[in-house]
């Protein structure tokens, strides 16, 4: 994806990107925002997905690798980490690659952050069967 018709709006582009990258998990996040902060759902489509993920300079696989690493290191974003582990699998990362990314974060963010990340991955892998 990423190369889009030039007349496509940020919102349309973001919706397309979110569906492609995050699939059902992304749809669920947006649906959960509908009654409390529908505008925030729009921002979510437009900024990270419409503006950033659609940029041509890096492929989606690499973007998900960096996102999984960042969310693991933050240590306080477990729900988002799970969504992006799903997304990583959707865009072609293997389970082994995802566990390698998370293990590497033990060096930079400490063992507890990596442990929590690995258990988040375990949960996602089990759910997908």
């Amino acid at each position, binding site marked *: 994806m990423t190369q889009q018709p030039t007349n496509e709006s940020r919102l349309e582009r973001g919706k397309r990107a979110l569906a492609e990258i995050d699939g059902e998990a992304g749809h669920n996040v947006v649906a959960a925002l509908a009654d409390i902060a529908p505008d925030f759902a729009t921002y979510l489509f437009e900024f990270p997905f419409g503006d950033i993920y659609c940029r041509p300079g890096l492929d989606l696989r690499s973007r998900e690798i960096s996102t999984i690493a960042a969310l693991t*290191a933050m240590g306080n974003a477990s729900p988002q980490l799970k969504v992006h582990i799903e997304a990583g699998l959707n865009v072609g990362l293997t389970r082994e690659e995802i566990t390698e990314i998370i293990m590497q974060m*033990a*060096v*930079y*963010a*400490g*063992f*507890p*952050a990596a442990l929590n990340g690995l258990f988040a991955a375990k949960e996602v892998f089990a759910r997908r069967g």
Partner: protein
Amino acid sequence: MDEKDRHRQGQSVRREVLGDVHVDRALRQRTAFSEDFQDLITRYAWGEIWTRPGLPRHTRSLLTLSMMVALNRDAEFQLHVRAAANNGVTRDEIKEVLLQTAIYCGVPAANHAFHLAVGVFQDMDREASPPPVD
């Protein structure tokens, strides 16, 4: 113990741990804006916690250092490196604490803490042997 006694006791423990130079400076810099806070930490942190008998001050210094690394509190970390020396913690023991933080807080956090600690040691050494006066 009333609050006045607690303040007095806290001030004395604070001087023993942080040193007169630091405490005198903090008191000199006290303003109407900060004095309630100075009073609070003297009674609470020093009068209530650091005075408790359940752990030796040496141990309290070690755990405080590791928490300051985990919480990324640079200035407080530097302060507690000096305090640790006053509490009988050796530089080798500080090194061991920092090595352990690498596991739980990550290598960059520990690396930064090593740099900060070295800077404090250099300052302490310089103060201990001032250059000769002409």
